[in-house]
Each structure stands twice: as C-alpha cells, then as structure tokens.
C-alpha cells in the first residue's frame, strides 16, 4: 500500500499485511476505543489491546505506577474485562473504527491460552494474537512460560494448533539470552515475535522505607530501557527468520527507525502514548520524511540494514 507521497510503509507479519509498521503497545492503549478521540485507529498498523484472560480480573491495589528517571514502573496486575466481555463490548466498536486488532492474551495455564485462542479465532475482527508470556507482575502462569524455553515452545505450538490467526509470542527481557527464546518460538511455528516486555524493577521511598508499588516490584518501561531493547531486537533478528516486532521506549520517529534498522519489521509504542496521545501522526510523518530523504521505496527495505562494517576514516576539511 502506498501513501500519497509514493512511499510504501506496509509490512508483512506472517499472513498479515499491516498498512504501516506502527502498533499501539498492549496495556498502554486501553482497549483502543479510549483513544479514538485522539487518533483515527484505522491509520495505525495495528492496535494491541490490554492483556486479556478468560475471566475478568481485578489487578493489584494502588499504587500501581511510579515514575523513575526517563521511565516508569508499573504493576497493574493485568486488570481486565475478560475475553467474553471484550468480544461483546469492545470488538464491535473496534471493527467500526476499522482498527487492525491484535489481541494480547494471558493464561494461568497452557489450557487457558488454547481456550482464549479458540474463542478469539471465532470472533469477527481479530487480526492476530499476541501471547503475553512475559508479564513480570503476576505470579501464576504467563512469565513461567516465557522464562523457560520448553514452556515457550509448548505454549506457542499448542496455540498454533487451534488458530488460523498469526501468533506472536511476546518475549520477556528478564532472561540471559532472549534470542534463544525467539528461536524456540520460531521452531514452535510462531509467525513473529514481539519484544520487549518490561524489565523487572523496583523503587523504594527512603523516608518511609516502603516500596513505591503495592506489588513491591514492577516492570520498567519508557526511554530508560530503549538501548537494551534495541540490542535485544538486534540479537533476535540475527537468530530467526520470522519478523521481529520491536519496542521499548520509542518516543520519536528516530527511535522508531533505530529499531527498524536494528531488525524490527514493525514497532510498538507504549509509554510515550501516555505522554502524548497525538504522537502517532508525528511518528508516521517523521518516518515518511526519512524514507523519502534516503530514497527508500519501501520501509521493509530498511529492516535490519544496520551497517556493521568497519568504518573508514574520513578526512573532513573544515
């Protein structure tokens, strides 16, 4: 698909064609509908909705977030309305808004992921499934799959068996070698991987000696994590052939391009949307401007084009 300027921003994630590589990150965009006043959802490559379990969940008591230098910690605890209410109450509106909906699913057990995948495959208007096996804030399920290569393999292959939708496991950065998890996902049949989820972290009020979050620990997101996330995307890109969806601290078109050049076929933006819900148009304009300046016909030509050859010394006369 071409924009008016003749630049092709579309990218391919498995069988899914996204009109551009910009996706709203799960947990940072509500169920999408909350943001319809700020952004035309149909102009986004995709909308990853808040993580869903089968049933409604209350999440953790406040305080759920705290700001840290260039970032924030969150321990929301995956409060959510459950898959059935999502399909009844949110999906029709998302369809009407012509959003490309990526549903982020969470399970306490492998069966719960499978059940969620079945239910969502029958629902009208779901474009892909993102498997949240990386939320650092809940004890049961989720992360236990994401921190074990076998667990990752098992949950991806089980879900693949029951759904025709593209399956995107979302990887945790809280492991020693994230690329091996991308490889396990690919072997299990994943259509893409997305990373990173948040980094397990904590903050303490020294006056009271109390943790700043009710859950004591939480996940770090925002610009503070960006260089680590870029490195992890780079490692995964070199380890697998399936597309890598990159995120972590993106707040400008330059940040977005950095991930794409490191190897991300598409990117997600989370925390920056809290600061600026009108960021989406600015990011797309900035990327469009860049590809035009660099005479790149298709954004997909830019993916993974990092130049690591040794630099020649240049004599620059002043």
């Amino acid at each position, binding site marked *: 698909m071409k924009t008016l300027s003749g630049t092709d921003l579309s990218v391919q994630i498995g069988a899914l064609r996204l009109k551009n590589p910009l996706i709203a990150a799960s947990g940072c965009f509500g169920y999408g509908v909350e943001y319809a006043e700020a952004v035309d959802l149909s102009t986004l490559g995709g909308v990853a909705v808040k993580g869903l379990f089968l049933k409604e969940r209350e999440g953790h008591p*406040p*305080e759920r977030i705290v700001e840290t*230098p260039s970032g924030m910690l969150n321990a929301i605890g995956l409060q959510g309305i459950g898959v059935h209410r999502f399909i009844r109450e949110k999906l029709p509106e998302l369809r009407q808004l012509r959003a490309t909906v990526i549903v982020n699913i969470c399970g306490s057990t492998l069966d719960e992921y499978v059940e969620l995948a079945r239910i969502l495959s029958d629902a009208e208007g779901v474009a892909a499934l993102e498997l949240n096996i990386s939320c650092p804030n809940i004890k049961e399920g989720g992360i236990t799959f994401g921190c074990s290569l076998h667990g990752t393999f098992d949950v991806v292959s089980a879900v693949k068996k029951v759904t025709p939708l593209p399956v995107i496991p979302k990887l945790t950065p809280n492991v020693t070698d994230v690329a091996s998890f991308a490889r396990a996902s690919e072997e299990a049949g994943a259509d893409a991987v997305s990373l990173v989820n948040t980094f397990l972290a904590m903050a303490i009020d020294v006056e009271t000696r109390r943790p700043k979050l009710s859950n004591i620990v939480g996940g770090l997101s925002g610009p503070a994590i960006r260089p680590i996330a870029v490195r992890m995307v780079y490692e995964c890109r070199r380890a697998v052939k399936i597309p890598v969806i990159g995120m972590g601290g993106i707040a400008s078109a330059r940040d977005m391009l950095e991930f794409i050049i490191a190897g991300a076929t598409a990117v997600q933006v989370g925390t920056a*949307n809290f600061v*600026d819900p009108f960021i989406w148009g600015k990011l797309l304009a900035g990327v469009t401007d860049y590809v035009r300046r660099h005479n790149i016909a298709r954004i997909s030509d830019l993916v993974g084009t990092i130049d690591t050859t040794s630099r020649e010394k240049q004599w620059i006369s002043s």
Partner: protein
Amino acid sequence: MLRDVEARVIRNTRLSRDYNVIALAAPEIAEATQPGQFVMVKSGRGGDPLLRRPFSVFEVLRSNNRVEGLTLLSKRVGVTTKILYDAVEGDTISCLGPLGRPFDLVDPPTEAWMVAGGVGLAPFATLGDALLAHGVKTTLFYGARTGGELFYLDWFTSRGIRLVLATEDGSIGDKARITIPLDRELQEADGEVVIYACGPEPMLEAVAHVAAKHKRTSQVSVERTMGCGMGGCYSCVIQVRSEAGSERTRPAHYVRSCIAGPVFKGEDLVWD
C-alpha cells in the same frame, strides 16, 4: 474535543510559599471544560518528569467576552508543581484536555454545598460559577491548616457564595476539620442539599460519611496517581460498589478514576 495545547504562561501568581495560580493561554481547552474536569500537564521537556500530571481547571479566563485561557491552582509538592511554581510569563506548558467526568449540576431549590480541603479548592471556582448561573444557592466549606492557606475568599464572597471556614490551628473559622462545621450545619438544614467535595482522600471519606448520615447525596472528586488521564494505563483505579451507570450490582471492583471519574457519587466509593 480533546486537545493538546502548547500553552503560553500568561501570568503566574504566587499565593504563598507553596501555592500558586498559573494562567495558561489554552482557550480551546478552557472553552470546552465543564466544572470538575481536568487537564494533564507536561512541564519541562524530555524525561524528567516524563509523565504528565493531572490538574483541575481552576478558572476559565475571559476578557471582553472572549475566552482567553484557564488557570490552575497548584501546591508545590513535587517536580511538576515546582516547575509550575517557578514558571514565568512567556514559558510554555503543555496542556492536554479537557478530560474526565464533570460534576452534575443540581437544580434549584436544592442548595449546593461545596467542601474544599487545601488545594482541593481547585474545581470550585468553575463549579461555583456554573451553579450560580443555574440559580442555585451555593455555600463553600473551606478548610486548611492555617488561615494563610485559605485563598480567593473575596472571589467567592463577591459572587454571593456563602463561606464557612475552618483551620487546624484555629487562625480563621472553626479550629477543626472542615467536616465539623459541615456536620453541624447539615444537622440544622431542612431543605434539599447536595454536597460537592474535593480534597485529601481522608477528608472525602469523612464528607461522604457525614453526607450519608444526614441522608444527603455527595459528589466527590478524587485524585489518584495517574499515568495518562485517558483510560490507557489502568493505574489511577479506585474501588466502587457497582458499575457506574448500570443497574447491575457486583462486588466492589476497580474502575479507572480518569474516565469513570474523577467525580464519583460518595456512596459508590469503597474507601481503602
């Protein structure tokens, strides 16, 4: 309509060592704001502070019948409020809004009793004006630590809003929490009264209890730690008894105070 405005600071009035009223040229937002709504403010650039902070719209500024901007009443407690305190004319502050569910206005002959604690005065200038324009007899119960922290008293009295004051040190009004005179006057009131409250949460809880004790409804404006102000992050949750706006009753559950509130019925909230 939601807008993000790079608003110029028109003036910044320091009321005390901690409190200030900052006037911002954001007429588009001011014009659309209803009493009780808030804006998300980003002061400074880049990563510190990273997130916006919520502020009630204090006044809508008009000159020659044109809306010129809005003001915020701020108390210096953290990074953002320090930047707001120190800001000078010509600085710019990013302002996103209007956001949140406003107060419901009552109809006369029901009276409106607004209860403010400290910086919780913020929503009551616009609410007071709207109530008076609607013909509602309005009283402001206003409490602070000390008389030097009671602001804008003339602003309210000159409009015909009755004042009942209380300070913790007794320097002005009752030497008590503001709920003491509220309780006393509710005891004596015989007409219909609706209570509006904004202030620290323990005060809101006490106001809701006093109102319920006298069989009056209350609307309270809460302030929880907010990440986005738009329902995106689920951080500003508060427990309510039943789903706002529906007949279904469920056990207490969390709702996002930014979009389900910040104004709630006092009787709906579960205080933790």
